[in-house]
């Protein structure tokens, strides 16, 4: 029973700390731009306010519009439970492997796009069209990227993959560098950050993700926003635990878990700092430059697979 409990606790930890990580990012970005920025609890206050508000449903919205936020939230929350956060061996990561993880993200995106198409406004259609187009390029890149790690670990199970990365004494594995590069590019695209998408814009020509959720309000918006924050933290945890897992707890003891939590928090803040720097330093790309960006990620991931196959094959 304890592993299940620990699994649920670490998933809840990820879910509840997601707004905080978004606030940390905002704060760091603001400091880099010589602003003071909102307080660290602002994300929680925003969510609380949205949950308390009366939602406004556009006329002509169908049940899909109301169902979609719950599916988006549930799929993302489940994804949080799959990824090992503090402990390597978790029962749920056996129930759903890394392909399922990508599938869950795809499910959440599918329903975000359906919610956007529901009213029939041009903004919704535009957002759905753009998001689905770019994700059609980003998703295979992500799959290929994690497959490189899977091939090295000989498993698609996230626990086993992290375990191998932790204990594998592989001399030089250039394929992992390719995988890391591809996954970094994809993570920025999937979480909708600059230079791919700007989460704080509402200009019709540049919106991608924001255009899809434009009609949402109240608790529905809160669920979607929260899911988005979860996705950001989740991608960071995934990248950190796959490529820099040192410190993660291998046995279920309180000191090990505490140490893992502290180290992970430190690593995430570092990664958030990098992201804040990137977002301050770069401008958003033109929409039609994005296929090149995502195509590059896809190509790098395929190169990683070929490198693994040719140089590191275990025939």
């Amino acid at each position: 029973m304890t592993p299940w409990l620990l699994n649920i606790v670490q998933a809840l930890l990820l879910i509840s700390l997601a707004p905080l990580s978004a606030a940390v990012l905002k704060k760091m970005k603001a400091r880099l731009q010589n602003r003071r920025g909102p307080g660290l609890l602002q994300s929680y206050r925003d969510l609380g306010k949205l949950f308390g508000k009366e939602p406004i449903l556009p006329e002509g919205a169908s049940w899909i519009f109301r169902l979609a936020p719950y599916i988006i939230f549930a799929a993302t929350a489940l994804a949080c439970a799959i990824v090992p956060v503090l402990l390597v061996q978790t029962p749920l990561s056996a129930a759903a492997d890394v392909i399922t993880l990508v599938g869950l993200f795809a499910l959440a995106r599918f329903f975000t796009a359906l919610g956007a198409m529901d009213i029939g406004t041009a903004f919704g259609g535009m957002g759905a069209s753009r998001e689905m187009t770019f994700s059609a390029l980003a998703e295979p890149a992500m799959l290929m990227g994690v497959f490189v790690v899977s091939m090295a670990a000989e498993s698609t199970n996230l626990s086993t993959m992290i375990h191998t990365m932790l204990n594998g004494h592989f001399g030089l594995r250039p394929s992992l560098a390719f995988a890391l590069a591809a996954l970094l590019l994809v993570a920025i695209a999937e979480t909708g950050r600059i230079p791919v998408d700007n989460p704080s814009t509402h200009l019709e020509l540049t919106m991608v993700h924001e255009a899809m959720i434009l009609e949402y309000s109240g608790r529905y918006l809160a669920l979607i926003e929260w899911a988005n924050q979860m996705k950001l933290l989740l991608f960071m945890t995934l990248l950190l635990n796959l490529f820099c897992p040192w410190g993660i707890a291998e046995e279920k003891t309180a000191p090990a878990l505490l140490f893992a939590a502290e180290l992970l928090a430190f690593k995430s803040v570092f990664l958030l700092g990098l992201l804040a720097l990137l977002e301050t330093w770069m401008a958003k790309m033109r929409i039609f430059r994005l296929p090149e960006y995502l195509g590059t990620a896809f190509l790098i991931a395929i190169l990683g697979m070929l490198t693994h196959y040719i140089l590191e094959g275990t025939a």
Partner: protein
Amino acid sequence: MFFEMNEGIMSPSVIMLSGPALALFVCVASLALSKAKEIRNRITYLLIAISGAFTTAAGVMGLLSPPQQLLLPLGLPWLPMHLRLDPLAGFFMVVIGLLVTSVGIYSVGYLRSRAKTQNLTLLDISMSLFIVGMQGVVLADDAYTFMIFWELMSVASYFFVIFDHEREANRKAGFLYLLMAHLGALLILSSFSILYAAGKSFEFEVMRNVHLSSTWLSLVFLTAGLGFGLKAGIIPLHIWLPEAHPVAPSNASALMSGVMIKVAVFGFLRVIWDLVGLDQAQGWWGGLVLAAGSSSAVGGVLLALQQHNLKRLLAYHSVENIGIIAIGLGLAMIFAHFGQGDLAALGLVAALYHTLNHALFKGLLFMGAGAILHATHHRNLDHLGGLIRRMPVTAVLFLIGCISISALPPFNGFVSEWLTFQAALMAPKLENSPLAALIPFSAAMLALAGALTATCFIKVFGIIFQGTPRTSAVATAHEVNGWMLSGMALPALLCLILGISPVWVIPLIDQVSPTLLASNLERSLTGSHWLWLTPLSPERASYSPLIVLLTSLLAGLAAFLLHRRGKPVRHAPVWSCGHPDLNPRMQYTATSFSQPLRRIFSTIYQPHEEVSRLDHGNPLLVKRIRFSVHIQDLAWNLLYLPVKRTVEWLTRGTDWLQRRQIHGHLSLVFVTLLILLGFLI
């Protein structure tokens, strides 16, 4: 076994033949009842549905029991009809049976209004012969029976394509279909003749044991592969499929797209895997199948994305899904070539699982397209919209089909793609060779195809069912009747069941592997738990759809309970940025939805765009603007038109032979005879 307990009425041969016999009886019933139109429609299609149920039962029996053989005293005097029900045939009988049952129920409602005004005898008879033909191909145990039923299937389905023969486009599609079907049949016939020449017998039993040189074997592979590939719609042989499937009545196109192209997959398995045998296969065969599958998967979905005709779009998706099946088969062939029997079994099971899945969700989607057509009389996406309010049940069922085909958990499409990925990830187990280096590429193509499919079905569902109606016929559409809904509900339910319980289905499908590969997924069966799908080993990969489903339901429920209940929801008009009134024509259309992809992949589409505008003397004051875009299927321009031109050039070259008087022709006959006599001497 339970079947052997009471011989006689429940004997295996009776079960085996009851499906085809009932389907054949439909012909008689339809002719006998030609006066009572409404009753006839109901009786014929219910009989077809029942025959489908019997076929499924026979298929399950074939999967579970040892092969049954049967000799029917029909056909040539020296060659009675050999039938055999082995696990491979049994699996495809299940695929045929399940969809025939659903389509039978659906057709009762779909054709009800048509049956009152139109004489549907031709449709009934060709439907019954078509189903018998498919079952006969699957059960055949000699080449002669196989070809007879193959032709029956092709010719009967020709009548579906030209059913609405008043329109010239349909007759043209029918001609193209017949031409390609016979080209395919000729190729298959030549592969059989090579095998016949070696063993001097039409029986498959003899053909299994013939020994041929590798050149002849490769020739068998190429002719059979091309022949069956033509029927299955592998790119670039797919050209007839998007023409023929959309013009047939929807119940028939559900069967053509759902099962008929699977019968071609069966034929390929029977001839190459069973008769020739993978132990005699050469390495490049699997590579070719894998490459063809990858190009079909991506090419099919790319072309589907730009279609506006719903049924045409679905037809292109059939090309894509056949590609995914071929990827699984190609992987299995490569693994078998390198002596990895259990990995080959994994590839085969993935391909067969996808075969079953595709039959179900493509049948469901084609039936859904028929329901939309029936209710609105529109098949162009850009004329539809907002149907989720007019046809709520159809919308739910269609959405299940969309999610399944987009390979999203927890539905069935995800399971088969998951299995295919697992097989592809075993590539490092093979020796280093250029052949095995193909595998990472095909995995990438599979991932790309899956993601593009989701994009395409957002477009399909969003444009058809969401937003507001774009035409008045759509705004007043009514939900279809109960027969049609239950015909669609059956495959929808099966999509969910197959998505949640792969652990129970895979051992059944795995019965096919020992007959083709001499190995199966045994290791996982002993080690697997009812909750966990572990195709190779628990450390390698595991997936538990039930836990995924339950946990996500729990999370959704938690999210629902998170907010204080009782908060009212206010309905308000959509904010239109101050524009006084929004109208349906301001919505995003299918054309605009796929515009970014059209731009990204413009080298493949080579879109031809036309904009014509009319203004009030100033380019800023637009009175009317018209935009049209056409995309190309590259296979036409690069492959078919040159062939057509060459054939025309050749026939023009022999024109002078035909422009003669009668004595000229007679002298030609005389000269030919003389030359032939010369050979005799």
